[in-house]
């Protein structure tokens, strides 16, 4: 995967640790190659090329992540939508240029997760409309963290920490039975000192954060960022960052995008419905958390 990956394990044997970590990195690599949106050779690219014409037989792993992506799309009523590819292609955050509204309007009908069909018996995926594009960018890092944890466990590791960019999965505890200390990035960091807005302790949980500060440009005082609303084709504007804590990385990752798009109120409703925990920082800097998190978060109070 084209991103920062870090794996930490607790083990009595250095050899066991090394072997397990190597296996985990290899598994992430294999998975990354299968679902790479930008590579012609990936299984994802094959699905996209065959949109509107044929179903594509894929690995069980690729089928499974698409299945889970569709689950989150359904649960969030399309706030997270893995068929957002045609819109993602229009936005380029390296140059401060907004896509033409007509281009966005023309592509909006292509974004519809209901037009993805999967056949679990034959491991076949099909996009029903021509020019549809699956993009798993909003779910793949969390899923990769889960893959890594599964591989580590199979290789005799009972506790560790997998970090893929901002997507983190913890399992077991640190030496001495201590939980892992995880920080949440301040979405409006001004200096080195206020990098973290809150801190918490996690054991056997995943946390993912979606923020408007990752890829963006500012034009006429408006921050245009990569978290697009699948319904409008424009960035979702009511939130600065969402952190979701769930049992699995795949759900923490995808639901953080969904909640970002839904906004603080509807987003929090979804979080509660899915029995997850969340920290939401809205556009005014107001911090919302789920009830159970309230006494578990250590806040750095920042203006």
């Amino acid at each position, binding site marked *: 995967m084209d991103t920062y990956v*870090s794996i930490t394990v607790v083990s009595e044997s250095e050899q066991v640790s090394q072997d397990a970590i190597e296996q985990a990195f290899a598994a992430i690599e294999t998975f990354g190659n299968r679902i790479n949106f930008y590579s012609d050779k990936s299984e994802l690219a094959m699905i996209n090329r065959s949109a509107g014409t044929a179903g594509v037989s894929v690995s069980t792993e690729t089928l499974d992540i698409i299945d889970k992506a569709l689950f989150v799309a359904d649960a969030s009523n399309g706030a997270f939508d893995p068929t957002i590819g045609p819109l993602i292609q229009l936005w380029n955050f390296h140059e401060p240029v907004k896509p033409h509204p007509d281009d966005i309007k023309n592509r909006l009908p292509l974004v519809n997760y209901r037009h993805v069909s999967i056949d679990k018996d034959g491991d076949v995926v099909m996009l029903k409309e021509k020019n549809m594009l699956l993009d798993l960018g909003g779910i793949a890092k969390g899923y990769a963290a889960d893959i890594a944890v599964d591989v580590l466990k199979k290789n005799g590791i009972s506790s560790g920490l997998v970090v893929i960019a901002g997507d983190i999965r913890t399992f077991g505890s640190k030496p001495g039975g201590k939980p892992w200390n995880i*920080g949440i990035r301040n979405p409006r960091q001004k200096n080195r000192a206020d990098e*973290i807005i809150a*801190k918490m302790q996690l054991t056997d949980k995943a*946390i993912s954060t979606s923020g408007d500060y990752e890829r963006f440009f500012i034009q006429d005082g408006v921050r245009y960022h990569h978290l697009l609303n699948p319904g409008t084709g424009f960035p979702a504007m009511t939130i600065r960052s969402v952190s979701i804590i769930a049992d699995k990385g795949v759900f923490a990752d995808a639901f953080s995008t969904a909640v970002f798009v839904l906004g603080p109120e509807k987003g929090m409703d979804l979080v509660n419905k899915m029995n997850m925990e969340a920290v939401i920082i809205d556009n005014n800097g107001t911090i919302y958390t789920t009830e159970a998190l309230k006494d578990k978060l250590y806040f750095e109070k920042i203006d």
Partner: protein
Amino acid sequence: MKKSIKNTTIADRVLFFVLIACSIAGMVIVQEAIPQGAYVNIEIDGSLAYTFPLDSDRIVPVSTPDGDMIIEIKDEKVRVSESDCPKKFCVSQGWIAKGAIICLPNKTVILVEQGMPYSEKKLDAISG
């Protein structure tokens, strides 16, 4: 060059070693001595309520169960600019760049500390 190394006496080598040790020690001392940034910790009734970097200016209204106060951070110094405690010793202490201001009636301690804030010190990972 090779020849001159061969011709060194034991004293030369000791001197050489001492010089290297000094320069390494120098690096370590410099790293330790130059502060990595100072922080203002505000503790209310024994528990840490706020942490701010000393090098960014701000005005912080603080409400405690015993009274309200306004804490000001400016030019890498901190003071209590207003307090509704009776004798206002905390206000009269003025600006500090190190040490602490303690307001007993409001059970508030304002402490300037060097180094990384607590939250960053002990993190295993950052999400975001």
